[in-house]
């Protein structure tokens, strides 16, 4: 009997949204099932790790790997699935650029564990225990995989064939990718697929005119006009520095783009591009006759509205950004680096 090509969907450090995006193919999921043997997905089915280990190498046609690499277990699964897959796809922003889990790279591992297990006001932990290593119970030993020093994206650990951006990827784009794979007409290795190459502004049908922003504003402050460019209204819409292909659902819902498709084609750092763009449209008013210090003071005053630029601009791409996170904390505990 002809065997259908195998499809796996795995989650590492992720939220499950990518699996929901797959299920959101709705009735098309039946077409996926007709064409592919959907055989591994811990979120949806009961196949175990040992079943994957038992497969011959390259037995899985396509693996959609979502989630960032936070623990040693994530790293182990990345290597296992790389070995067992013909095509390994970094699926979604976590696997592509670290996404929300990688925001931990703004602090050290120790600071992170302290704020989660010790200093958090809602935590009652008088013995100040931080779960780690092996714990013995009457039923046997329980082992927790260690955290890496830094959150990493998939390509920092294993060879990745393609990237699909999005938090999560839009379902119609997942379908496009599956159709492309089934057609056998694959794009060159290393490409970001299931998306466009331009910016979200290209998908957004709002009216765009001259951009001069007298102040940055935040979404809770006012109800934006539904027809005018959100950036022109002072909201820090990331559409100008974000890859298109999503169809701009956020700006259609009157919310600014938060940048989940990552930087457009050929742009290494999404945050740098946001700084470049915003730096040229801020309008600090008339500076005639002011001293250099006074002008700098006006700029600082203008910038005060937003409390967390780095978190805003690198929400989805800190691990793959130029600096990768806070410097000086190093990748020291990432001993399993095989690139």
């Amino acid at each position, binding site marked *: 009997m002809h065997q259908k090509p195998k499809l796996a969907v795995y989650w590492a450090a992720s939220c499950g949204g990518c699996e929901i995006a797959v299920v959101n193919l709705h009735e098309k999921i039946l077409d996926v099932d007709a064409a592919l043997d959907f055989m591994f997905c811990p979120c949806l089915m009961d196949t175990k790790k040992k079943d994957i280990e038992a497969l011959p190498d390259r037995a899985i046609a396509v693996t959609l790997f979502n989630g960032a690499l936070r623990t040693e277990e994530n790293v182990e699964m990345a290597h296992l699935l790389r070995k067992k897959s013909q095509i390994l796809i970094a699926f979604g922003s976590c696997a592509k650029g670290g996404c929300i889990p990688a925001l931990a790279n703004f602090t050290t591992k120790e600071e992170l564990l302290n704020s989660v297990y010790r200093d958090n006001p809602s935590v009652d932990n008088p013995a100040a225990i931080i779960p780690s290593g092996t714990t013995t119970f009457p039923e046997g030993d329980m082992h927790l995989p260690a955290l890496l020093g830094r959150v990493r994206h998939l390509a920092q650990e294993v060879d990745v064939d393609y990237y699909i951006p999005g938090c999560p990827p839009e379902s119609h784009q997942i379908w496009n990718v599956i159709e492309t794979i089934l057609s056998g007409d694959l794009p060159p290795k290393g490409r970001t697929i299931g998306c466009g190459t331009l910016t979200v502004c290209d998908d957004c049908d709002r009216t765009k005119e001259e951009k001069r922003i007298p102040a940055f504003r935040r979404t809770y402050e006012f109800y934006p006009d539904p027809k005018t460019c959100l950036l022109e209204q002072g909201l820090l819409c990331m559409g100008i520095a974000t890859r298109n292909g999503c169809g701009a659902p956020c700006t259609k819902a009157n919310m600014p783009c938060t940048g989940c498709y990552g930087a457009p084609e050929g742009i290494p750092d999404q945050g740098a591009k946001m700084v470049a763009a915003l*730096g040229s449209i801020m309008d600090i008013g008339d500076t005639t006759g002011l001293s250099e210090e006074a002008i*700098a003071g006006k700029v600082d005053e203008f910038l005060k509205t937003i409390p967390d630029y780095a978190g805003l601009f690198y929400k989805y791409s800190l691990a793959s950004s*130029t600096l990768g996170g806070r410097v000086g904390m190093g990748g020291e505990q990432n001993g399993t680096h095989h690139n």
Partner: protein
Amino acid sequence: MIPVKAFEPKIIGFLCNWCSYAGADKAGGAQEAYPPNVQVIRVMCSGRVDPQFILSSLANGADGVIVLACHPGDCHYKEGNCRALQRHSMLLLLLEQLGIEKERYRLDYVSAGEGEKFAQVITEMVESVRALGPLSVAQESID
């Protein structure tokens, strides 16, 4: 025994063609003494300095970056230096969150006639970065 080499900061300087680069020339012509730690890159305007250049410099071995622009109101392209200032102020906030000290990224104004100021700004920059020590960016974060 091999003597331990003292730390010499590596600094990238982006100098505007119309004012600051001419200011550097003036400093050279007047034989002003200043430390040789700044590798100068001439750009047509300080507004041309993409924040990506700063991040890439820091990620690839620079201990500091300095951008020198025309004084406010003097920009050859009217407002390039204003844009440079606005980007600089915003990028400083980002760099602070990324653990990079503000002394490592400086913007200042040097006109074509200010050779002396050029020497003074460069000296200050080199000394403040020297005091901070080398910048270590984890190797794996470099593309």
